[in-house]
């Protein structure tokens, strides 16, 4: 402190400048990251003539709020939204059921299989989706399930490597002595799992729930393969189909894209902590 005070004012100024220097690239990058969002919202509020008027303005001359209403009337987007919500919630329930169960088995129960199972679970991360896509499509077709949601939802109830891994990382931080104490008191594994493990790990459960929701909400290839009936389209499929028939109606396309994105942004702002923590625990190392 004292040494700094004795330093000449010019050098102190330089130091203050150097500390703030990162603002320059940070601001430039922010423009790159944020401009597309502004462009999306701006276009969604323009009239079709203004959409194509040159040079374009970022702030519409007239705000056409009814674009949002009109776009929704152009195609059954309300039904698509309901379908997407149904699909996403069902998948979340599936993964919240399966992932912690399996994670508990490979991290907190001492059995030889657990040590074999975990690497096998991780190795499925390498398996490309197209390998299983065709045979599963054939099976679901024989069951007459193609067109509906079952082929997309049922696999969630068996867990996925990514979410099991996330839960396991979290379970590992719970001291084994806590569980052993409960075991000595005669609590069954199911009881320990339900009354100790799950309540302790709600942050991890929240992260899994959020990631599963986002993945399902945005999923495209899965619905593209299975949801062949238009009444079952999700927003991804509906927006894609709408694009093909309304190529130049960018104000409508952007309005729907914006509404499609808003729920995710809201979830992000409500649960930011779980995003960051969840990503940090899964992305680091095995």
């Amino acid at each position, binding site marked *: 402190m004292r040494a700094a005070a004795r330093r000449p004012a010019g050098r102190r100024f330089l130091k203050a400048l150097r500390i703030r220097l990162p603002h320059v690239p940070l601001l430039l990058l*922010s423009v790159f990251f944020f401009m597309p969002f502004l462009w999306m919202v701006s276009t969604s509020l323009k009239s079709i003539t203004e959409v194509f008027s040159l040079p374009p303005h970022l702030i519409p001359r007239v705000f056409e709020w009814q674009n949002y209403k009109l776009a929704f009337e152009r195609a059954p987007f309300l039904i698509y939204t309901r379908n997407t919500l149904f699909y996403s919630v069902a998948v979340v329930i599936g993964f919240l059921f399966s992932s912690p169960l399996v994670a508990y088995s490979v991290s907190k129960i001492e059995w030889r299989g657990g040590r074999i199972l975990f690497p096998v679970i991780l190795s499925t991360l390498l398996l*490309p989706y197209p390998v299983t896509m065709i045979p599963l499509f054939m099976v679901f077709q024989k069951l007459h399930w193609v067109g509906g949601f079952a082929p997309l939802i049922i696999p969630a109830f068996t*867990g996925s490597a990514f979410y099991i891994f996330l839960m396991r990382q979290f379970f590992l931080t719970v001291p084994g002595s806590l569980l052993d104490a409960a075991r000595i008191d005669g609590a069954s594994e199911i009881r320990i799992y339900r009354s100790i493990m799950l309540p302790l790990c709600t942050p991890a459960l929240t992260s899994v729930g959020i990631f599963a929701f986002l993945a399902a909400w945005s999923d495209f290839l899965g619905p593209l393969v299975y949801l062949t009936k238009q009444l079952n389209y999700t927003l991804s499929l509906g927006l894609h189909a709408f694009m093909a028939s309304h190529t130049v109606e960018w104000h409508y396309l952007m309005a729907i894209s914006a509404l499609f994105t808003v729920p995710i942004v809201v979830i992000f702002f409500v649960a930011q902590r779980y995003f960051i923590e969840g990503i940090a625990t899964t992305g680091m190392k095995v």
Partner: protein
Amino acid sequence: MTRITLNRRRKNTLMGLLFASPWIIGFFCFTLFPIGASFYYSLTNFNVFQAPRFVGAANYVQLFSDESFYKGLYNTFYMTIVGTPVYLVFALAAALLLNSKLKSISIYRTIFYLPSIVPLVASSLLWIWILNPMSGLLNNVLKTLHLYQPNWLGNSSLTKPSLILIGTWATGQTMVIFLAALKDVPRYLYEAARIDGAGAWARFRHVTLPTISPVILFQIIMSVIYSLQYFTQAYVIAGSQGGLNVVSGGPENSLLFYVMYLFHNAFFYLKMGKASAMAWILFVIIALITWLLFRTSRQWVSYGSE
């Protein structure tokens, strides 16, 4: 005594199996069985309506003289080899910036991260519009700067660089992972390096990079696996030019990616056998590359004593 431990061990095995049973069942039904079935299909001639007919290696032989197959491979490798380094270097640079001690850093972090959670169909559409040659945002910015305004998604040599640009916009995921890794680098290492007279670049090169190298390896592997299965963005962009029911690979097939061609074969041409063979080739490629990455990683990844 031994009886009790034996009983306990049996009980543990039973419980372990019980808790893992959803995944074990799923593994047999949704992973192991389809892997086997897919290999069998790859040896057959098979459209959805008739039973598979065994043809041996014919699908594989046919693929090796199929121009579109090579085109798909080339386009996909392009995204992997050019895209992966671009994404990772960009994400690491952004993470280093986000690691500086500024009060407003959480606002920047939010802005940097948001693009990565936009649904792919929505972000692809948005970028088709941004890259629109006449009325798009980018070309109008270039126009005011008196720069050349290319037809980004219409010119076959620019389509893939455009896709990499779009991918760069959405690297928030990797950025946050790198940022977490950077925050984990022990402070005393930097202090020790400083005492030894290491400058900023030397500290980054000899302290930061080695310490976060396991995270970098993991990100390289995930990014490679992801880019080898590149599909949605290209499917939406190619579809925006050719229409929904037209089998399109973009201008001069420059957007015909491997999984897209596989999808065309399976669900448009109903050549399920050929598509299965493609899936298996992709599987082998991914396994090989992952193995190679792990092998070479021994030379540059350091696992600390922690």
